[in-house]
């Protein structure tokens, strides 16, 4: 290898190293901190020394963290199920059938996905109180739909449109109703798209903070992000960082695993939503 080329290769791998360290270090450091006792935390360490699980025990003992996890799972699963069902049926209409007003409708749906959450906050507060859903999980499911439904419809429509036109023609000639066509013809073909969109919707609902913070009151109705944000110690200056890091690691590991397993699908989902948009 020529010196100039060698230098280039070294510079390139140095850049790669910087990117990887910058990307991964905070997560590594959170894991490291979560495994140290509260007195050890006052000394800064860059490498793991001994492993101590006391923070993981404490986070479940000192607050209803198991309940918070369950809340998050229930809310996210319900939001995903509702969004996918409504999204799939709507995407069939928007992606396969020509009707007047389709363009305007798609535009409106895209516009809704741009809504700042806070713009609907007071109206949503009133709505949730009206239905008697304040401080309850159904209230969070309802409000989360504004985040997930527009992009679910949008991405599924994009996928649906790319399927060959002949697909449903044959079924229609045989006298199938649109509902049967969606279930028998499109549902099996849409599985990859549904997994991708479902995963993105799950992440959105799992991470949602503003509604969960505003529409819940008691500790046992909170979802994980709110619970973590509101972990407090004896005083404001004595936050139990060990517990916070342990809780952070617990909620992040499943997400990181999911994202790494489905990374190709997620990338295709994101690009379908944004680039092709």
């Amino acid at each position, binding site marked *: 290898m020529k010196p100039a080329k060698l230098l280039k290769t070294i510079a*390139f791998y140095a850049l*790669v190293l910087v*990117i*990887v360290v910058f990307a*991964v270090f*905070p*997560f590594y*450091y*959170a894991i490291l901190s979560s495994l140290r006792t509260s007195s050890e935390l006052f000394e*800064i360490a860059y490498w793991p020394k001994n492993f101590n699980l006391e923070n993981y025990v404490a986070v479940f003992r000192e607050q209803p963290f198991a309940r918070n996890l369950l809340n998050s799972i229930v809310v996210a699963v319900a939001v995903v199920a509702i969004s996918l069902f*409504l999204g799939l*049926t*709507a995407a*069939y*209409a928007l992606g396969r*059938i*020509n*009707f007047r007003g389709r*363009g305007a*409708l*798609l535009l409106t*749906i895209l516009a*809704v996905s*741009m*809504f*700042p*959450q*806070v*713009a*609907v*906050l*007071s*109206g*949503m*507060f*009133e709505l949730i109180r009206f239905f008697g859903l304040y401080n309850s999980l159904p209230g969070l499911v309802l409000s989360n*739909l504004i985040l997930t*439904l*527009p992009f679910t419809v949008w991405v599924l429509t994009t996928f649906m*449109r790319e399927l060959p036109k002949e697909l449903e023609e044959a079924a229609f000639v045989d006298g199938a109703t649109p*509902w049967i066509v969606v279930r028998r013809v499109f549902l099996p073909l849409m599985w990859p798209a549904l997994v991708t969109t479902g995963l993105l919707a799950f992440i959105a609902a799992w*991470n949602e*903070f503003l509604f969960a913070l*505003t529409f819940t009151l008691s500790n046992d109705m909170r979802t994980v*992000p709110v619970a*973590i*944000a509101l972990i407090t110690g004896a005083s404001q200056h004595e936050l139990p960082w060990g517990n*916070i890091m342990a809780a*952070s690691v617990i*909620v*992040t590991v499943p*997400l990181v695993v999911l*994202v*790494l397993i489905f*990374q190709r699908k*997620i990338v295709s989902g*994101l690009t379908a939503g*944004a*680039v092709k*948009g």
Partner: protein
Amino acid sequence: MSGRSALTRARVRAAWQFLTPMLVVLVLVAGWPLFRTIYFSLTDANLSDLSATKFIGLENYLANYDGEWSGLLADEYWWRAVRNTIGFTLVSCSLETLLGFIVALVLNADFKGRGLVRAAVLVPWAIPTIVSAKMWGWMLHDQFGIINDLFMRIGLISAPIAWTANPDIAIWAVILVDVWKTTPFMALLILAGLQMLPGDIYEAARIDGVSPIRVFFKVTLPLVWPAVMVAVIFRALDAMRIFDLIYVLTSNTRETASMSIYARQQLVDFQQVGMGSAASTLLFLVIAVFTIIAITVGKVKLGQEG
């Protein structure tokens, strides 16, 4: 002939049947609450009892009693929130685009371990915002934070810095965490754009001996620019709504508030639904205008035909 149009009519009817449930939900969770927020912004609504509200016109926005201006547009903290939001959006989006480009170009190159690097880059994206805020909050801790320790070891600073407590510095901490969290998203979108480029142009450029830097500015950049612009617009719209990161990372004072934080403070902490709704409505209008410009300029494809 008539059978065909009957079939078409049946399908259009089916389309609306399929759309109705989704549209009902969308009106319920988006249209109606937005309408009510705008309505509340014209009233003196209070959170403790929303039914006892009185229409007061535009007084939440701007009012004048005995020569004294009041309302949102006369509140210096509102303007501070506007400045914070716009400044944050401009700086973080520029940095994310620039760094996203670098990461995308690296990931587009052919090298050993590319899959691993791509996976590593996705990690920040997968971490919930609240968790990132807490992780960085701990790393930026003024006494026991690793960042202060690291910077002091390499001689960058001589005394620990209160990254998140000092409002002037806190906004930069917010930008740092946002850049860390969102650059992967930008990088992946730009990478998708890069991978759609035809390879033969590069082959031709290589044979002609054009320098790689020239190829980047003359060929790559103009070709991926449309895809990049769409990504930047999406990102900017998202940045203007920022709430979680500031709420958790900074000490959440009026000095570091974004427009969303200001609105929620009025709404929940001060129970002033009228004022809070006015702030929300203004943020909505700003984003709406920006979106309309973006969609018009970006020529987003809407139907197969049009």
